[in-house]
């Protein structure tokens, strides 16, 4: 479960990115996080993966309280969250398969686990036959699917995606969203940041809208009911 309570985030240069934001996401939910540029969406993501600390308020992620988390616990918190970015973040000189191995190795997985889990996840995103190719030999949509497969490797309870379709054409974007929807159906909580209104409207999901660092709407559909 994810819970932000009255969170204020002030960056060192004085920018107030979040101004008393509260948000709760239950296990198994699928949530779109939308809002204009600069409204604080990426800041929410950074808070949830422990990249920045809240100035005020409380942040809970899968049982970890990020305000008083010990530094050594942060990696273990991150293993419960799979992260996907707009720019894929794959290692260019490693094949798809080796990219996956690299990510599992990094959390201390053994060869037997790796042999089982990597094909399973590649299969889930439909790329089992591209495992020997380099990222540069794949389309943008395929690269993002690799990133999704990688995010799933350590069996996280939550997937967080910051504009995962920002670099893709509408057809590829729809494919990626459908994939995330399917992963959600398998039991993983999914939080997707996007500003593609049309795309959001094709799904009947909860939409949380931010503006100036606060939740201004929360409900089904893009123009969902106003938050109190």
């Amino acid at each position, binding site marked *: 479960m994810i819970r932000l309570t009255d969170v204020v985030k002030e960056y060192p240069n004085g920018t107030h990115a979040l101004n008393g934001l509260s948000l709760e996401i239950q296990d198994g939910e699928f949530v779109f996080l939308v809002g204009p540029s600069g409204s604080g969406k990426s800041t929410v993501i950074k808070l949830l*993966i*422990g*990249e920045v600390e809240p100035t005020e308020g409380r942040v809970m992620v899968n049982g970890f309280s990020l305000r008083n988390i010990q*530094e*050594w616990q*942060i*990696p*273990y*918190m*991150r*293993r419960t969250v799979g*992260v996907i970015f707009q720019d894929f*973040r794959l*290692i260019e000189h490693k094949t798809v398969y080796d990219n996956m191995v*690299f*990510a599992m*190795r*990094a*959390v*201390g997985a*053994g*060869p037997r686990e790796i042999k089982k889990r990597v094909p399973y996840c590649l299969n889930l995103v439909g790329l089992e036959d591209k495992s020997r190719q380099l990222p540069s030999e794949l389309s943008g949509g395929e690269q993002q699917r690799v990133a999704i497969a*990688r995010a799933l*490797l*350590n069996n996280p309870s939550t997937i967080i995606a910051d504009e995962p379709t920002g670099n893709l054409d509408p057809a590829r974007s729809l494919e990626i969203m459908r994939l995330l929807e399917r992963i959600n159906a398998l039991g993983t909580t999914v939080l997707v940041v996007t500003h593609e209104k049309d795309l959001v409207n094709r799904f009947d999901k909860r939409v949380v809208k931010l503006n100036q660092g606060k939740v201004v709407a929360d409900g089904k559909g893009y123009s969902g009911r106003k938050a109190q």
Partner: protein
Amino acid sequence: MRGRNLFYFAREGAYNMFSHGFMSFAAVGITVACLLIMGTFTMVAININAMMEDLENQNQMLAFVEMGMSEEEARGLESQLLQVPNVSGVTFISNAQAAEEFRDRYENEELYTGIPDSNYRHRYAINLKDIGRIAETKAALDAIPGIEDVRAAEAEAQGFITIRNVAGVVCVVLIAVLFVVSIFIIANTIKLTTFDRRDEIAIMKMVGATNGFIRWPFVFEGLLLGLFSAVIGFFLQWGLYEAIARSVATNDTINFISVVPFAGLWHYVAGIFAAAGMVIGVGGSLSAIRRFLQV
């Protein structure tokens, strides 16, 4: 640390090292130079110490017994002399022996050879444990009743002690400076690697790798650089030492110096180089990765 991780870290470390061929080469070069200077100074110090020891073994003071004391009385002083601190041994020399020696030395000079035995005093040759304490030992010997006069080569001994102390200080200072320089160079080499691999580091953090896991390959890289330097440095030091020893032995003015053979020193050199290489390598990598691993 699990075995497969150890292997993984070592392989990644080696890969890092070779991926920066030139920088690694430079780092190893500087470290080897530091080790060589360090090693050479240490070996010079070892040789000076060996020479000092020789000198100490040879170094005798002469304690003269009062004129007119009988040989028996004079021999009776031996136990008292041995009780003086810093005295390692005494040898009695009767006036007859001393006269004989003197006459042998100045065989052709009438003036000396004509002196009768009774004009010589009985004496003791005194061996010291530490020639650094020559003055205080002399005073203690002087204070024994029956001992009239103590002669020692104070000035000569003082000279050697000064050389040893200066060499020691120079050695320590130089080694400290070179250590810091080597660590700095290795740190910069590894910083380059971390910069090269910043994307991979970011991904590792993203998927939840611990800082320890991210650090190890860089520690291994430093360790390998240090050990490589130690091995190369060892063989160069060996060659250098043999060359110097040979030129000392064949030089007419300094061949009185007996150089300690390398065979008796190689395990010290190997040990010191390996330890210094590891400290420099690991120290360098830790100082390189300390800051960038926050968060």
